[in-house]
């Protein structure tokens, strides 16, 4: 990997980290519970994209499986939290 792609990967990793910090601000400051759940869901998506970029950086397939797992668990977690906010219990 020559300079251009390597520096683009590094820059996008930094930008993703900045976006994660901004989402963390909303997570800590969110006035209501649903704001926090939304920020957590966004953090999951950002972490998944970061795993894909890391897979490009280290030229390894394994990161893709991590990204897929993060996507699945993020969906289940956000679904359960939203259901809890809606009903007060996850499984009725």
């Amino acid at each position, binding site marked *: 990997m020559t300079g251009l792609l390597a520096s683009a990967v590094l*820059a996008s990793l930094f930008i993703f980290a900045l976006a994660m910090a901004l989402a963390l601000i909303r997570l800590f400051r969110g006035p209501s519970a649903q704001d926090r759940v939304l920020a957590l869901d966004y953090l999951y998506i950002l972490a998944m994209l970061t795993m894909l970029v890391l897979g490009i950086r280290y030229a390894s397939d394994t990161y*893709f499986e991590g990204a897929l797992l993060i996507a699945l668990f993020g969906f289940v977690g956000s679904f359960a939290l939203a259901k809890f906010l809606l009903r007060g219990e996850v499984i009725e």
Partner: protein
Amino acid sequence: MTETLELPFWLELISAVLLLTGSLFALIGALGLVRLKDYFQRMHPPALASTIGAWCVALASIIYFSWLKEAPILHAWLIPILLSITVPVTTLLLARAALFRKRMSKEPVPEEISSGRHRGN
């Protein structure tokens, strides 16, 4: 790494532009998440990362690995497909939860669009 495959310059340029586009759109989404005033407005910006961001990063990954393995490696496509199935479900459920909670605490909520019959909640 024993041997390093060099990408041709145009493929490298395309992947770099795709990666930067995806991450910048994710950053714009995070900025919107912090700066917008109302919760129902704040539900919108995360869609930037889960549509444009995910598509751009997955395309860059597909281009890079396909050149590296010298075969079409399309499995990164699973990520945007999975996101396009799961994100609407969570978004809809979160919107309904927010509406329910705001109505319960007597906060102002957006007006109903449909003029159908009302079923309590």
